[in-house]
């Protein structure tokens, strides 16, 4: 621990954002890194707890107190090594992770956690700047070959780990570039895409072959593909969106969030948009349905398009701004979270359900919402009750549906393989072996666990790599 009394001496100070007025003018990141002396103070706040609750909070098992201490002692290189020992891509999580570690931080009992995510990000950014991040090439090849299908964070982590274990790995991606939702879902203003490119470069050097533009299950029959490999890992994500089945849904101006976001990301990186119509929010009254992170990304993107207004609706009730920490900490609490995109001027409303879209000329003009209540029933769960007489009309030009994803795409690869699915329609596999009902076929990430965070995807990719390695070799030295 750097400084036993650091937490008593220094207050939390996190990264600032560039001013709204400027940042909505571009698609670049706008987070202002902490100056080095402030960073050291922030790292000194870590108490090196006897039980680091941040461990429990962090899905990739980041060894947080250790690298906080290293930063305090300005040993960034060693800090980067420790960071990489649990996380393949800390520059991703350092930007877009909601940081459950900070919720679990002991100092968060007083709403004042260590700026863990900021410290993480600064370590890895520094490491790249100093050119400390090198390919870790394993010269002892195993002669085993593995196909990893889907190049989101789970697939990338899995492929990288397997290559480092000496296996021959091919990473398949249906899109033009590697990254999955990292690249096509998350707006550049939250994470710029060159960060992915340099990782791809590193992985290529480590021996991962990138097979982009190949939609397995469509372009290549999966059964065919399997013949060439000793193991196959499915990391195709959970791409089937949750739908809103109300009258008027099929009108113009009602779009899926992911279509909207991926178009914009392609636009930013000068990739061909490759679809029939452009979805743009400029000068429009935009309504985003769904109060989660994707919705928030739609909000930010809409502002950058130059939307007139952006309203975000959520069916659940408004969470409290403050929670009773004694009853929640160190768990992830339901509380009001305001993103940088919300701060850019969004109107947010809760406890509303969409009854129907009103359409003129095949184009949406407004939607009718109704207030709902949530009531505890006798079974211990809660029921949704619509409150009579609370209908309202919201005029709109563009509605973006961001209500999450229900399960992976079944059609094609999953269906062709015939692997067993779980109750929710995800591919069934446990978190020890990660093996599907088909021997030699593994599954990790959202495709296995359903929609989730990038950090969970990385965790599963790593653990799955361990399982595959063990499956192939009888034992594995890869860390889980």
């Amino acid at each position, binding site marked *: 621990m750097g400084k*036993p*009394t650091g*937490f*008593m001496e220094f207050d939390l100070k996190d990264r600032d954002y560039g001013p709204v007025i400027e940042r909505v003018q571009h698609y670049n990141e706008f987070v202002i890194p902490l100056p080095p002396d402030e960073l050291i103070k922030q790292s000194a706040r870590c*108490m*090196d*707890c*006897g*039980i*680091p*609750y941040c*461990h*429990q909070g962090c899905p990739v*098992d980041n*060894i947080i107190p*250790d690298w906080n201490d290293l930063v305090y*002692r300005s040993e960034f290189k060693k800090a980067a*090594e*420790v960071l990489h*020992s*649990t996380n393949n891509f800390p520059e991703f999580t350092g930007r877009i992770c909601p940081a459950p570690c900070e919720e*679990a931080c*002991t*100092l968060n*009992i*007083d709403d004042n956690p260590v700026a863990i995510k900021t410290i993480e990000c600064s370590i890895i950014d520094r490491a790249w700047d100093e050119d400390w991040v090198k390919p870790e090439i394993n010269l*002892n090849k195993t002669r085993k070959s593995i196909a990893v299908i889907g190049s989101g964070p789970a697939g990338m982590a899995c492929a990288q780990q397997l290559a*480092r*274990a000496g296996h021959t790995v091919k990473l398949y991606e249906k899109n033009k570039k590697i990254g999955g939702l990292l690249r096509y879902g998350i707006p550049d203003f939250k994470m710029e895409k060159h960060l992915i490119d340099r990782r791809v470069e590193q992985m290529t050097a480590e021996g991962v072959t990138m097979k982009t533009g190949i939609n397995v299950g469509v372009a290549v029959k999966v059964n065919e593909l399997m013949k060439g490999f000793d193991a196959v890992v499915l990391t195709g994500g959970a791409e089937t969106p949750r739908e809103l089945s109300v009258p008027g849904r099929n009108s113009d101006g009602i779009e899926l969030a992911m279509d909207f976001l991926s178009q914009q990301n392609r636009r930013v990186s000068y990739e061909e948009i490759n679809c029939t119509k452009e979805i743009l929010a400029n000068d429009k009254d935009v309504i985003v349905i769904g109060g989660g992170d994707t919705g928030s990304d739609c909000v930010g993107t809409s502002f950058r398009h130059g939307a007139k207004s952006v309203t975000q609706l959520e069916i659940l009730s408004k969470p409290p701004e403050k929670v009773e920490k*004694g*009853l929640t*900490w*160190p*768990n992830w609490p339901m509380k009001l979270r305001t993103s940088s995109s919300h701060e850019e001027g969004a109107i947010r409303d809760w406890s509303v359900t969409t009854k129907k879209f009103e359409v003129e000329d095949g184009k949406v003009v407004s939607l009718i919402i109704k207030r709902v209540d949530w009531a505890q029933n006798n079974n211990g769960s809660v029921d949704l009750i619509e409150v009579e007489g609370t209908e309202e009309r919201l005029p709109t030009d563009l509605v973006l549906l961001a209500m999450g994803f229900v399960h992976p795409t079944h059609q094609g690869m999953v269906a062709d393989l015939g692997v067993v699915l779980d109750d929710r329609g995800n591919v069934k596999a446990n978190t020890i072996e990660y093996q599907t009902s088909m021997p030699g076929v593994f599954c990790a990430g959202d495709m296995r666990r359903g929609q989730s965070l990038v950090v969970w995807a990385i965790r599963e990719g790593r653990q799955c790599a361990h399982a595959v390695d063990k499956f192939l070799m009888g034992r594995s*030295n*890869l*860390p889980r």
Partner: protein
Amino acid sequence: MFVSGLPEKQGLYDPANEHDNCGIGFVANIKNHKSHEIVRQGLTVLENLTHRGAAGADPLTGDGAGILIQLPHRFFQEECQILGIKLPKEENYGVGIIFLPQEESARSACENAVVDLVKKEGQRFLGWRDLPTDNSVLSKAVRDIEPYIRQAFIGRGKACLDTDAFERKLFVIRKQAHKLVREKELSGEESFYIPTLSARTICFKGMMLAARVASYFKDLTDERVESALALVHQRFSTNTFPSWELSQPLRFLCHNGEINTLRGNINWMAARRHSMKSEFLGNDLQKLWPLIADGNSDSATFDNALELLLAGGYSLAHAMMLMIPEAWNDNPLMDKERRAFYEYHAALMEPWDGPAAVAFTNGRQIGATLDRNGLRPARYVVTVDGLVVMGSEVGVLDIPDDKIVQKWRLQPGKMFLIDLEEGRIIDDLELKTELAKAHPYQTWLNQTQIIIEDLATVAEPIAPNHQTILDRQQAFGYTQEDIKFFLLPMATSGQDPVGSMGRDIPHAVLSDRPKLLYDYFKQSFAQVTNPPIDPIREELVMSLVSLIGPRPNLLGLDSGGNHMRLEVRQPILSNSDLEKIRHIQDGAESFKSTTLDICYPTSDGADGMKSKIENLCQEAKTSVLNGYNILILSDRSINEENVAIPALLATSAVHHHLIREGLRTDTGLVIETGEARQVHDFCLLAGYGAEAINPYLAFDTITEFANQLPERSSVSELNANYIKALDKGILKVMSKMGISTYQSYCGAQIFDAIGLSSEFVEKYFTKTASAIEGVGLREIAGEMIERHGRAYGDDHVLRDDLDVGGELAYRIRGEEHMWTPETISRLQHSARMNSREIYDEYSAEMNDQSRKLKNLRGLFKFKFDDHQIPIEEVEPASEIVKRFVTGAMSFGSISFEAHTNLAIAMNRIGGKSNTGEGGEQAERYKTLANGDTMRSAIKQVASGRFGVTTEYLRNADEIQIKMAQGAKPGEGGQLPGHKVDNIIAEVRYSTPGVGLISPPPHHDIYSIEDLAQLIHDLKNVNPNARISVKLVSIVGVGTIAAGVSKAHADHVLISGAEGGTGASPITSILHAGAPWEIGLAETHQTLVINKLRGRICVQTDGGIRTGRDVAIAAMLGADEYGIATASLIASGCIMMRKCHLNTCPVGIATQDPDLRKKFKGQPEHVINYMFFVAEEVREIMAELGFPSINKMIGRSDKLEMTKAIEHWKAKGIDLSRLLYKPDMGPNVAIYNSEKQDHGLKNALDNILIKKANPALEKGRPVKIEMSFQNINRTVGAMLSGEVAERYGHAGLPDDTIFIKGKGSGGQSFGAFLSKGITIELEGDTNDYVGKGLSGGHLIVYPPKETPIKAEDNIVIGNVALYGATAGECYFRGVAGERFAVRNSGAIAVVEGVGDHCCEYMTGGVVVVLGATGRNFAAGMSGGIAYVLDEKEDFDVRCNLAMVELENISDEGNLKQKADGESLGLYDLMYDMNEHDQSRLKILIEYHMHFTDSSRARHILENWDNFLPKFIKVMPVDFRRALLEMREPVKDDQELIDGTVAGE
């Protein structure tokens, strides 16, 4: 094996664990005038020591007593004439007292064996005499095993030229007789025992109360039985099983003490077998083996060894000095020749280390000696008629005062001897000077001694490259924690690191991770029967000197100066030192060293280790036979192809092999290992025979880190610091067991094994206790191989890093913990929401160990059968919670908020909270407006006695004597000055800003009879409180608990070693003591077998977290349950493990006002949790069919071990000994159902209270006259309790109750005397005068008619004013050792003191008008002392670590108190930085006034001459704190009021 009723080893009970302590004494006529009077007086002494012994379950069954006298020649002549035996002249025949079987044929077989041997050895057998005895004085149980006792008369054979030779022959006969009878396995052979067989002495002893010795042995009352000496002994043993032969006196001595290093001493004696030769014994030497019978008491073993030395030609005094040497190294006051004597003899034999008062005689000389630290009392009186009376207490024989010419005490390490033939007393100085001059010891040393540190440096290996170091670190299991918590802090600070909270990780045998062999051993420690030592404050008795290499012939009296010796000043060798040894033959021809490789090919796998060890042992043997006298066991050759045997295993295997071969003393054993790194590792290597150790990898590691440290230090500095830290740590571990020298620690095996199979232990760690079985060589080797494989393999995590460890702090990829983010958050959420549902999730997580084993109880399963009852029939939770207590946590270690929260919660539900060590504010005794109370029901009395006043004790439902603490048994503590704020200083009766030290031992408990005394003291102060004794679980704790029960404790707590702590060396947190399951089960079994269970309540704690834990504790035998850490967690603790840093972020373990505000706990949270636990217990009870807890206690038959243990290590565990249920029949209680008899009815205080009634009820002054005897113990305490009950700590006005007495005050005279009581005694007193003095006044002076000079004679015993908080004392005469130890406010004047005066003192004033002993003011952080230094050597006698010496200043006069009248009462405590002259003079005037001291008068009459000779002892911290307090200046009135707080 014995004439005893000791039960067989059963369950966890093992008779080998028995301890005894006692009272000893002798009477002798210096001129060797034999008379029956001496015998009679001896018996009187014995009777007056009765209270130092004990009785068992049956009050008639004493623990044994006896008397040893010279052979009564006239008596035997006349008696033998009647029997037709013709006795030769005096000294030409020997008499044996022989215990024989009652059964006739067995008896005659034994008799024939004796007679045959006598003839075979060339002596004449003269005949038998039946000893007349009266067994009506014995209890039934003892009568059952009463031996048939006969006397054998043996005439000196012609071959024996003199009596000395004849005595040797009788010794040889006796030894062989024992062996022969044992080997023949005659029926009744266990009865056969020869107490004495000598031409000079005879011993009468047996299993009876002291007062019955004379009635049983009728000879003793025969007027014709005459002797010039009588040596007597009253035993207090921890068991209740009668054992005739363990009674004392033994053949040459009686011993009050304990040999802590016994196992090592026995091993070393056995190791000498082949190297020992004696010109006196010649071939007879071989007939003496086995010299020491297994299972003897430590005293008997000591006697055996002494006997050998005497037979081998040593004089009595010489032999005693060899076995119990004074602390000689670094003693500037010891003359050079004596020092050389001791240094020379150090190579001959390791000390028999431990507290000891030994009285010894060979019939011609009689004497006594004390251990180096003076841990047992011994007082003596010499009369004008040449009578000497020595005893554990003074006043044991009524002698007219006008006859006494000297009253003195034995001092630490000193001896005194009466030579009856010369007819004079030889004092220590003369005796030892003569022996020291007998040979040119210094010259011999100069010729033969080589000190390694002083040898020229040789080239040392350079540190290897990073990869090699990393691989080795990994192969030896280094973790990141080793670096972070151990090596770096040690190398930078030179301290053994400190941590907090308890151990909650699995035992090595349960862990999934490969563990080091060290982790399977637990350090043992001293509790009750012997005291631990403070290695810092009492450094003068400690020594780390180690002698490497062959030891000289112990009996080679004429070979002095021929034997080369190799010495290291401390046992950790630098790389350079090791190279010196490796090349020793180049410089010193007498030495030849060789390095034995302890690595073997990795390809041989785990199975290869066994044969490698065998080869290694053979190799060691061959090397020794080939003349190599230093063996270096080395694992330096470890690499990918070669795996190392664990260094500890290699060391112990070779050590024991060489012992068995009788070759061990022919060679030294040095270990070169990469494995050892923590203090515990080195202690184990030492404990199993390593004379010196080189941890090369630790040095390499430090070297690598050297340039990364923020403060640049040189590698050699860092390494030196690391060695220093190890040394300190080793000293601490040694001192925990009360061992003071490395030489006796080496090979002493002060460890218990947990999780090792007994086969493995017996083979490689012979005679180490192992309670639960476990892994063997296969698994141990497997762990080594696994680590090795990972180290040299391609493990990604280990590629450039060490394993995380995760033992000290929870870590991903680290060790399993009980307390995890999940368990803690669930417990807290459940307690805060009162949600049983979430609690169930918590307890399920805690209890379920199906996937990961975490503790022993995880291996238990309830035997549910069809006896379940409806839950409504089970006693309600509200009853069960009354059996719950929270742990002892001091106000000081935790915040006021946290402390009172627990108290309020426990008071609401009828459980108990515990003050911990550190007092309690008096406000907390009042009930709050809402009916709550913050008063802790349990008041702890710990070694520091902080805040232990009469009022405090009076406000207790239970008084707990803390003998040890689970997280740091055998250790003291320290509260740094910055943590002592105003409130803490107030409750601890100390000064804000001044650090406080808790000594490792209670200075009034060095033995079990001392504990009995303290229990008696506390019960007197508060007869309504239960007196509890807190012990820590370890193998053998059961017998201690039995002793505690016999010492009349109402309650005993068996604390698991895994309990929490606010601060403790990590070494102790992890490695000292055993889990509660083992200690509790042993305690319960032993108490039941002893029939003592019913009268004592048994509590356990140390990691109880759920209802299942409680149920198992009950079934293993606990009546009550302590839940400490979990109740803190319910209050908000999150296991930061930062308690020692004062930075607790949840306001618990901190005094920081800002952090304290963060405390969020509520009493309801604790209550909710307690009820959840109780409800969970109820559910288990219902299923098991127990309607009440009482019905469940001790029902271990309803538990079984989980059958399906597949764990590769845990499957070897066998818990059946824990589950053993002794079958004692229905009449023997198995839970607490009776009360102890404290014998308070006979207390003198009952009379005092009656007489003081007007004062108590109306505050009217009373005067009482009384006479006292040594058997009147704890005078004044019960009366003081009555005063405190009515008047609190403020008490009554001075002298309201004035007691004038005459005689010898018993132990604890004036203990806890309340303000308003004065006792003036004309006479003298024993130990513990004014213990816990709470404002009363004590005046002691010698009787007017005595001719002795008061200032040259002793007037009060040892350890006066221990823990005194206020009051005044005037003692005309000299006091014993440790005067005013831990005094925090009393004022005392005395005319001379022994060693360690004012130790740990924190307040008050002490004036010494005469000589002092050594180590004055050790650990003294407050208060002041004035010493008259006439010899001008006080600076050498004073420990200057914390104090400075000043001349007496004369600025300003003290203010007179407002109510000062005729005498002029002054405010003596006012600003102790100044007014010294005035204060000193006033105190001496008071002293003269109260005691009529001629010394004081002389000084005052010559004041100007004496004043410059006075020295003021001023603690540095104290002065600083006083100066800080001076600002801002207050007005006079305020100052006078303010200082009253000190009283």
